[in-house]
């Protein structure tokens, strides 16, 4: 029973988290392919049937030209594969790349208003969660909605899967495939440099929130550490993707690295060092506390690889000069 409620809270937390990612975007390397003038290519791919979260399928007769993206990660992908000219609205959290931040039409993804979505006459709505029965409501209005739930994106590979999915849905499979190939190359470049590190030689505490919410192995954040052969002290968390740890568990686990994804919300390296009882932790003793832009690590978009590269440099400075 407590676990169930913990799960609900964790889900709420997850929802909050995904939102939180959106908060502070600012420039890291943009990697966008294509120019906005490129027309939807490869019409031959359509009609196309895709499976949505929740089990139903969605059939698209032709490449959509009026996409509403209600996920900041998806919006980043859409820009990166050059499909932004097919997009008519993004969600309020979208802030990357710069053009997404200034997008003329922005909708609220947390309390989505079906009317204002319908008014845009979209031929594809992309959602990463289904708050308040939005998907049902759009189905009833016969507005094509592609729901790919963020909770199902549990690894970096799953993030690449999102890119492939959006490539198909927008009719830009070539650009999506090229993007995934280049991202994989960058991932391989990182993992090849740490392949000889014994798994779990270092352990990490990844802080999502200053009340010690963290990300478990069952998230793509956890997967970043797995790729780096770093042990995540949160472990698999027994089903809750974003558990709240007790302080004594953190102190006892004695992580060699602490990564702060909550720096934009007032937590600093210094404030961590000053927490009572934390001075015995290796990461605090050895000054191995690093901040990471939460948008990089927690959006299911191309910048997940930026996060991987940054973490690699922070955790293994000697290997990544």
């Amino acid at each position, binding site marked *: 029973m407590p676990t169930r409620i*913990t799960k609900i809270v964790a889900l709420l937390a997850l929802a909050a988290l995904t939102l939180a990612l959106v908060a502070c975007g600012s420039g890291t390397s943009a990697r966008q392919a294509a120019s906005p003038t490129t027309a939807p290519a490869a019409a031959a791919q359509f009609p196309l049937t895709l499976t949505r979260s929740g089990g139903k399928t969605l059939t698209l007769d032709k490449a959509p030209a009026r996409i509403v993206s209600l996920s900041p990660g998806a919006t980043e992908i859409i820009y990166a594969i050059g499909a932004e000219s097919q997009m008519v609205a993004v969600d309020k959290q979208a802030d990357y790349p710069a053009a997404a931040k200034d997008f003329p039409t922005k909708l609220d993804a947390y309390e989505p208003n079906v009317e204002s979505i319908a008014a845009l006459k979209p031929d594809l709505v992309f959602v990463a969660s289904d708050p308040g029965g939005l998907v049902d409501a759009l189905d009833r209005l016969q507005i094509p909605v592609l729901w790919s739930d963020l909770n199902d994106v549990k690894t970096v590979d799953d993030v690449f899967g999102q890119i492939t999915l959006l490539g198909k849905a927008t009719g830009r499979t070539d650009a999506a495939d090229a993007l995934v190939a280049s991202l994989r190359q960058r991932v391989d470049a990182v993992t090849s440099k740490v392949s000889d590190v014994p798994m779990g030689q270092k352990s990490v505490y990844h802080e999502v929130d200053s009340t010690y919410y963290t990300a478990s192995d069952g998230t793509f954040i956890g997967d970043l550490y797995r790729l780096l052969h770093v042990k995540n002290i949160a472990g698999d968390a027994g089903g809750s993707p974003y558990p709240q740890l007790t302080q004594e568990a953190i102190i006892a686990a004695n992580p060699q690295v602490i990564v702060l994804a909550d720096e934009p919300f007032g937590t600093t390296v210094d404030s961590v060092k000053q927490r009572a009882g934390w001075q015995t932790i290796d990461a605090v003793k050895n000054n191995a506390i690093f901040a990471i832009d939460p948008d990089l690590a927690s959006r299911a978009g191309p910048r997940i690889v930026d996060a991987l590269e940054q973490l690699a440099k922070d955790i293994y400075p000697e290997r990544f000069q």
Partner: protein
Amino acid sequence: MRAADAGPLAGAQQPAAADAVEMPLLTLRRVLPSYAIGIVTTLAVALFAICWGTVHIPPQTTIAILLGHLPFVSTGTHDPTYDAIVWDVRVPRVVLAGLVGATLGYAGATYQGVFRNPLAEPYLIGVAAGASVGATLIIISPLYVAAGLLSPVPPAAFCGALIAVALAYGLARAGRAVPVTGLILSGVAISSIGTSVVTYLMLTYTDRTISILNWTLGGFNTASWTKSAIALPYMVVALVLILPFARLLNVMQLDDDDARQLGVDVERVKLLLLGLASLATAAAVAVSGLIGFVGLIVPHTARMIFGPDYRRVLPMSAFFGASFLILADTLARSLDGGREIPIGVVTALIGAPFFLHLLRRYQRAAGELRDA
């Protein structure tokens, strides 16, 4: 004037009123044993809680570490990690949970006494909603610093709570009197407004949702000596000042008019008691967030075990509240491995069945008494 109007009626009730004041005749000697039970229970629970956690530290080591932190006592050196866990994490947590539990129990008993309503609890007239609004406004502002000594969240929550209670009281006021029903209703209305504001802000400032949610769920995961020190003065002042009114609360249980006959300005006393209880509750909420259920069931439990006399109900509610919340927090931090369970979940899941059990026994006993 009022007393004169109510003359005949109040006269008829006078023996009852006199009974309430005189009958139990609780002398200090008769009260002390129950106080002693309360103190010993609370200390035993606290010691158990300090020894218990997901990190298994032998009890003798824990106790040695504890003693080692007393002035002029040396118990040798200990594993610094154990020392940090016991002294910097567990002890402050247990102390804060105890303080907050004592305050909520005590304030709950006071509210129930003043309102003469078994459903009254410390959050009833706006403390919780007001504190949430205060905390939320800070969390969404650039001033937000998550934790630590300089965090503006506790003072903001504190001020919010007091403003909400003052509003509820002001709106319910009719001339010199504050009708109890009116106060409850205006409190409920103020609470609804506060809750809506918080919900709206939570969904609007989505990057802070988790922080707001986490605050409203309450808990002791970020407990520190500082937090206890901040809240302690308010709690102590309120607890000490309310206790002398225990006898008067006994009389007020019958009728305000009976209390007036004793020459007491009932409205002023009500205002004072509610103000003190709200002040203490506001301090508790400021350092722990919202923890439901404690303030409701703890006073009833004290009443069922030790009888309705407020000279016992008040202090025993403090001891029971402390013990209960320390136990609940111990479960919250140890049931699910190294992960936290929201404390409100524990207080309801563990507290409610226990309370229902007590209630059934109590009612059965009362029924047998009636039938006899």
